[in-house]
Structures are given as structure tokens and as C-alpha cells.
């Protein structure tokens, strides 16, 4: 895809199944989050380029509603991106923050946490397409997603501590699990910002593509998942990772895996894919 404006060039040219109608209610009065659906893939575009796609309260509320809609509609993969190539998202909207009352700021923390929890617990796989700045709340949001794909000029960092704040949308406990405790301290306490190549080496992101191509690559990956895998199985595997890899006792985790396997081996997807493929070549089983 030509490296035009990443959002305008989104690979979601619709083929008649795009159902703006299903999401109209969610986006009725906020046009700063664009919602597009195409063949089982929902693309959410934070469209506030003049504010570096900062996540103000209204945009986050709309995103939360769109993600609810995705559950209802059985969407298998959600792609989140920011309009333009300058910024995925600069995080919480500092201007809005500066004008907020203490109660509004706390509401913002609470709903920001709820949004990242919603992403982590969402049955769909969440893919972030990141160009330019992915800082503060923008990085926090993407950390709750399942896959991060970056344009090569992306910059990832957490400026909260120098600004007098702390990252509070789940990053203080999610980041060490992704990149390790030492590097998490570097990014949070020492506010180290990293480029896409370093982020890839650290395992903070999954893939680097030429600038301007993060969205098209994310959409390509999303359709490959939506077309080639079973959404129920994906959702179950995702839950096992989110809920069992880091929580509870070893015995409880083991039993959870066992129960998941018991239900999985009885599922249609298992029968079709694994048992069916036994006759094919070289399945590891």
C-alpha cells in the first residue's frame, strides 16, 4: 500500500458487509473515533490528529461502546490505530486534564483502567497499528492489546513521571510482564523512550514495518486471523493467558488449563482442525 495518510489508506474499503449501521449508535455524536467493520474485523481510528490523537474522555467512552458492540456482533479481531502517521496516540488529553476537577481526574483514571481491562479481557484479538508517538496513555492502551505493529519511526515512552504523574492505566503491572522488571523500571521511573527497533528487540512490539504501513499490515494480519482461525478458540487461549499465566496458584492455573482443554477437545473447531488434519501432513499435535 502506498504510504499515504495511514488512516485514509486504511485497508477497510468495504465490500458491502461493512456495517456502519451497527455502530452508528456508538459513534452518533463523536466523530473523533471512527469505527469501520469489514468481514469480521473492526477498525477503530482515533481521529484527533491536531491533538496527536490524545485520548480525551469522549473518545475513550466511544471506544468502550464500540468494543461492547464488537462483543455483541461477534467480531473476531479489532484493530486500533491513530489517524495520520505522526502519532498513534499521545495518551491522556493533558489539556482536558488541566481543565478538570479532581473528581473528573479520578473518573478519568477509573475509566481509563476500565478501558484497558476491557481490551485485555475482550474475546476478540486486539491488534494495534502504531505510527509516530505512542506515549503515555497511548502506550498503556496498546499494552492491554494482544499485538503491536509499528511503523519504523514510532517512538514509545512514558512521560508521566517527569510530568508529575504516574502511569495508571495498568502499565505499572503489565509492562514488567512484557519486557521484564529492569527495562520496565527504565521506561517508567527513568522515562526512557525507545524507537521501534529497540522496542522490537525488547519484545515490546511484535513487528516493525516501513513508515505508513502499520495499519495496512495490521489489517492484513487481522484478516488472516479472522479468516484462518476459530474465534472461540482464540478467545479461550487469550483468556488462559490473561487470567492464568499471572494470577492465582500454580495448582489453580493448572486446573484451569485442564478444564479449558476438556472443553476445547470437545469443540467443533478441535474436531475439524486437529482431528481433520491428522490425515494431512505433519501436524505436531
Amino acid at each position, binding site marked *: 500500500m502506498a504510504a499515504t495518510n495511514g488512516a485514509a489508506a486504511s485497508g477497510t474499503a468495504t465490500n458491502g458487509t461493512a456495517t456502519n449501521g451497527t455502530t452508528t449508535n456508538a459513534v452518533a455524536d463523536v466523530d473523533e473515533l471512527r469505527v469501520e467493520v469489514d468481514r469480521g474485523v473492526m477498525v477503530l481510528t482515533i481521529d484527533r490528529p491536531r491533538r496527536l490523537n490524545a485520548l480525551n474522555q469522549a473518545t475513550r467512552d466511544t471506544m468502550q461502546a464500540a468494543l461492547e458492540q464488537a462483543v455483541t456482533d461477534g467480531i473476531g479481531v479489532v484493530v486500533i490505530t491513530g489517524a495520520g502517521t505522526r502519532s498513534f496516540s499521545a495518551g491522556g488529553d493533558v489539556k482536558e486534564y488541566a481543565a478538570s476537577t479532581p473528581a473528573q481526574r479520578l473518573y478519568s483514571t477509573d475509566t481509563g483502567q476500565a478501558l484497558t481491562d476491557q481490551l485485555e479481557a475482550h474475546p476478540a484479538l486486539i491488534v494495534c497499528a502504531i505510527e509516530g508517538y505512542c506515549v503515555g496513555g497511548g502506550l498503556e492502551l496498546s499494552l492491554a492489546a494482544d499485538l503491536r505493529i509499528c511503523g519504523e519511526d514510532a517512538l514509545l515512552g512514558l512521560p508521566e513521571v517527569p510530568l508529575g504523574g504516574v502511569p495508571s492505566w495498568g502499565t*505499572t503491572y503489565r509492562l514488567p510482564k512484557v519486557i521484564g522488571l529492569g527495562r520496565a523500571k527504565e521506561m517508567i*521511573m527513568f522515562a526512557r523512550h525507545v524507537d521501534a527497533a529497540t522496542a522490537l528487540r525488547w519484545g515490546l512490539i511484535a513487528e516493525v514495518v516501513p513508515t505508513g504501513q502499520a495499519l495496512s499490515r495490521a489489517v492484513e494480519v487481522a484478516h488472516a486471523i479472522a479468516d484462518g482461525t476459530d474465534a472461540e478458540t482464540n478467545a479461550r487461549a487469550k483468556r488462559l493467558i490473561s487470567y492464568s499465566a499471572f494470577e492465582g496458584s500454580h495448582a489453580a492455573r493448572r486446573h484451569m488449563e485442564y478444564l479449558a482443554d476438556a472443553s476445547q477437545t470437545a469443540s467443533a473447531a478441535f474436531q475439524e482442525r486437529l482431528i481433520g488434519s491428522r490425515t494431512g501432513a505433519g501436524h505436531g499435535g
Partner: protein
Amino acid sequence: MTEEFRVEVVDRIATLTIDRPTRRNAIDTATLMGIRKALAGFGDDVDAVVITGAGGQAFSAGGDVKEYATMTPAERLRNTDLMQDTLDQVEYHPRPVIAAIEGFAFGGGLELALATDYRVAGGGAKFRLPEVSLGALPTGGSFVRLHRVVGIGRARELILFNRQLTPEQALDWGLVSEVVPEGTALERAQEVARLLLASSATSTITIAKQLITFGLDAPARSARFMEYLADKSQTASDAFEKGVAAFANEGKRPVPGVSRSSGTK
């Protein structure tokens, strides 16, 4: 405090030096007591702590085996207890702690470094946990902190397979934050402390450090509530008002706290 353990405070940055170069800065009981006493004594006069070893040959080669040899089993157990508790003091200390590592960071020396927040290694640094090969166990937090830093697979390599790492490998694994030319780790560690304090308020650094440390031990729901409570106090602070106001009204962008020298990866 013995003369084998030194504490100097310059411009609100404390430097703790294990000064037993003929013993490769092995950590004996007196060293542990020195670290505890120093950390407990820092009040509002200290904003950051650097830990290093004297002589350039070793950060620390680990526990003092000569001292062990003179101990009864009961004394050895008390020593293990003291070591664990002292390294917890380092990890839980409210101020940022930075390790400046030249030469050997073996056994308990590596464990001490793991309890800090930022590790700067000189080009001649060596990292290893030889305990298991010696019939002992690295019980100064290697089973608690190491896998959180390098992942469980690599923790197994270090603990079980006695693998020794070069500074470059340690950097690649995320075991250290920076590699600098041999002999300059202390200088760089003190610079990192200065840059950090110039960019961020001490109270904010403290709350961020505690969120990371205690959040990792908590179930996600509790960690999330800790973040919420931290935000509640932080958004009412002077540091927050200043930072947010400067950003929102003057368009002043925050600078990354610690810019890195070009020689580091």
C-alpha cells in the same frame, strides 16, 4: 560501620562503596549492616543512591566464603536472613537506587545489583551465579527477582547452568540498562542519578517505584486499585500541577528523564 564500607553524600546523591578490593568486595556481615544503616539513615537529605564496589576489579564477588567457613549452621542461616532482608531494603527503598558495576558481579553481588532500579555496567563486567556449582543456592532473591528481569528461561540458564554473561549479553537480556567503557560505570551512574533528579520530582519517582515493586506482587485487581489510589494522591500534588500546567499551557514537552550516551545500545 567499618572502613570497608563507605558512604558519601554529594549534592543529595549518596554513593555507597563496598571497599574490600582484596576480597573482591565480598559481602560480609559488616557490609550488610553498613548498607542497612546507610539506607535507614537517609532522610530528606538524599534523593538518589548509587551502589558500587571499590578498585575496579569487582562490583562484588558475592557472599564472603571465608566468613561462611567460620560460621555455625545457625549463624549461616541468620546470615541468609540478613542478606534477604537487606536486599529487600534496597528494593523497597523510597529513593531510586543505581548500581555501578565493574568486574565481577557474581552470586550475592549480582543479587545485590538485581535489587536496584538501574544497572550500569563497565566494559569488563562479568555476571554469574556460581552457587549451585559450589553446592549452595543463590538465596538472595535470585528465585524471586531474576526471572522478573530476564524471564524464566534465562533465569534457569543463570541459576542452574552456571552461565557467565559479558556486559553485551547482559544488555541484550535486559539484565543491565547500559554498558559504558571500563572504569566509567560509577561516573555514569552518578550522572544518571543527576539527570533523573533534574527531570522528575523525587516524590513522583518514589510513588512510581513503589507501584512497580508492589504491583508485581499483587493480584491485578489490587495492583489496579493501587494505581488508582496513587493517581488520586498524585493528581492533587504540586508536581502534577506544575508538569501538567507547563505541558498544557506552554506546550512544554517532557524530556525523557535520562538521555543515553551514544556509546550505549
